[in-house]
């Protein structure tokens, strides 16, 4: 396997932004978990808590010309890409003013202006769509990249292997970022991933590839930086496998009986990317506890406001049922 090992250290300001993003995601998901348990969330949701370093580190390298194709575990990457928190919350609550006007819902968070592309119900098709974004970027000579976030489960879809090959054959500016959280729904990767190593699939398709610890923001930041820079400079596609623990179930309401007793508590204790980042910021980058606590408080206020606005928002206009099926309605 080709190792990606160019030094790629985040700046102090970059760390402040990363912490803010990761903390925002964690607070959002914990709040959503509580709201769901209280019966106030009208739809199915898949929480991103535990995987925050992945989205935050990838998005730290993306600009306005770049595309991010999301997974159904969509809230974290949407927040990291900078989508409006209130519009995200309204979309999850299927209310007017949601990112997709209440017609997409939690897995399909999409913001065309930010080139944040909503996920696919059947999982995996984002890999192919990302090849298309990359083709358009190259056609317009935009110096951009397309990042396809994929779960470990989606990597067993044929379309993902096809897309690895196509991206390599066409030398597209794509990064396949696999968030391996150990489970596809209720089935462990040790059962479902032959070879138990998704990073090993990259070289088979002629792509540089690496596996990183998703609990270590610095490691993900470096690996994503190298892969994105490679794509941006015309070096073609890469694969990054990010080993990121999942702190909640596949979806909310999942009793998670398939996990070993104490597994989640142990992951939270030993592999929490947020507490690890916080500690390193204090130990190595001279952030004070008070400074970080102030960020936490500020984020708490934003989250409260987003949930209050979503809860108070009206349902979508009934006319939306028949709107936007087509862009051109002539003859219909």
């Amino acid at each position, binding site marked *: 396997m080709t190792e990606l090992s160019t030094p790629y250290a985040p700046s102090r300001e970059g760390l402040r932004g990363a912490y803010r993003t990761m903390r925002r995601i964690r607070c959002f998901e914990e709040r959503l978990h509580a709201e769901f348990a209280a019966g106030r969330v009208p739809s199915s949701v898949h929480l991103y808590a535990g995987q925050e370093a992945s989205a935050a580190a990838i998005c730290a390298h993306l600009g306005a010309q770049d595309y991010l194709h999301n997974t159904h575990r969509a809230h974290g990457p949407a927040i990291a890409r900078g989508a409006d928190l209130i519009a995200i919350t309204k979309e999850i609550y299927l209310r007017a003013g949601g990112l*997709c006007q209440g017609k997409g819902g939690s897995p399909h968070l999409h913001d065309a202006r930010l080139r944040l592309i909503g996920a696919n119900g059947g999982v995996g098709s984002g890999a192919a769509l990302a090849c298309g974004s990359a083709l358009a970027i190259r056609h317009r000579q935009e110096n951009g990249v397309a990042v396809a976030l994929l779960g470990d489960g989606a990597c067993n879809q044929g379309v993902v292997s096809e897309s690895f090959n196509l991206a390599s054959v066409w030398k597209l500016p794509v990064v396949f970022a696999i968030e391996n959280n150990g489970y596809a729904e209720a089935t462990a990767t040790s059962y479902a991933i032959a070879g138990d190593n998704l990073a090993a699939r990259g070289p088979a398709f002629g792509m540089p590839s690496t596996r990183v610890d998703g609990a270590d923001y610095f490691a993900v930041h470096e690996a994503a930086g190298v892969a994105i820079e490679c794509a941006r400079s015309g070096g073609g596609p890469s694969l990054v496998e990010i080993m990121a623990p999942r702190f909640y179930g596949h979806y909310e309401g999942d009793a998670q009986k398939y996990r070993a007793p104490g597994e989640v508590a142990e992951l939270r204790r030993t592999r929490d990317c947020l507490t690890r980042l916080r500690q390193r910021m204090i130990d190595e980058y001279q952030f004070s506890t008070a400074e970080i606590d102030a960020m936490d408080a500020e984020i708490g206020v934003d989250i409260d406001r987003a949930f209050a606005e979503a809860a108070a928002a009206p349902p979508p206009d009934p006319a939306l049922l028949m709107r936007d099926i087509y862009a051109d309605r002539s003859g219909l």
Partner: protein
Amino acid sequence: MSVKSYRAAIREALEHEMQRDPDVVLIGQDLAGGAGGGGEDDAWGGPMAVTKGLVGKFGRERVLDTPVSEAASIGAAVGAAAAGLRPVAELMFCDFIGVCCDQILNQAAKYRYTFGGQDQVPLTIRTTIGAGQQLGSQHSQALYPLFSYFPGLKVVVPATAYDAKGLLATAIRDNDPVIFCEHRLLYRLREDVPDESYTIPFGEARIVEEGGDVTVVALSRMVHVAAEAVRALREDGIDCDLIDPRTTTPLDTDTIFDSVEATGRLVIVDEAGPRCGTASDIAAIVAEEMFNALRAPIRRVTPPYAPVPAAPELERSYVPDASRIIAAVRSVMER
């Protein structure tokens, strides 16, 4: 104006649209052929030789040969369209939708709607349909009703070279995903076609024949088979309206309604199957909207509810022919 084949008319539309708009790119298997080999470039010019010569004019950056990966390549075409290109993807046989359903039916069709109208997907998928070449059950179907099931897609079934050229130009300029169904037995059909570029609006049926006794609606190659039946019936004193809807989404119900209002009798000829097909769809719409105008039961002339067999003797009895259409028209005239 000059005599052109259906195949040449399609190629001309592709060439004109590629000249007109630099964002039009072609994506598919062997559109040029010869990539990476030691022999000729543009060796095939498409599996049906429709795209021959285009790689020489526009280069491999705009004529993109793909691996045998319909899911990835159709998916990439959807992503490219949503990102602002105007791709024309080729799905060699419509039967192969089996390996890229998600990309067409979930991604392309629903992209705009699911995301609340933020984007448009100006994608054309050219595909081929039809029996008659002894290619068997997985290379011979006419699956356009499947596409018309899905809101968000537009579906074109051209029967003539003139219509193929004008409707393909419309498809490529349209801002929604369009499935363009070329019947392989029509590729050699020749007729006068303008040399210059032109468009034909979607949702406008062509009235092929005007009669007044019976309304016959036929699609794609069945238009020609029905025309043969209509000529034979005229010699027996039965005059039919023959209508070719040309697009199944949008569907020009007004033209069909106007004709049925006058005739009170409807026969629908479809190479797609008898269950959940276009003939059933049109029959249901007319029965619901025009029941009081009908003077006889609606008759559908379709293949049997069976896969397409390969042996020519079996295949001939699968595809509707003029004699079955004549019998159907006579049966509605008896009521």
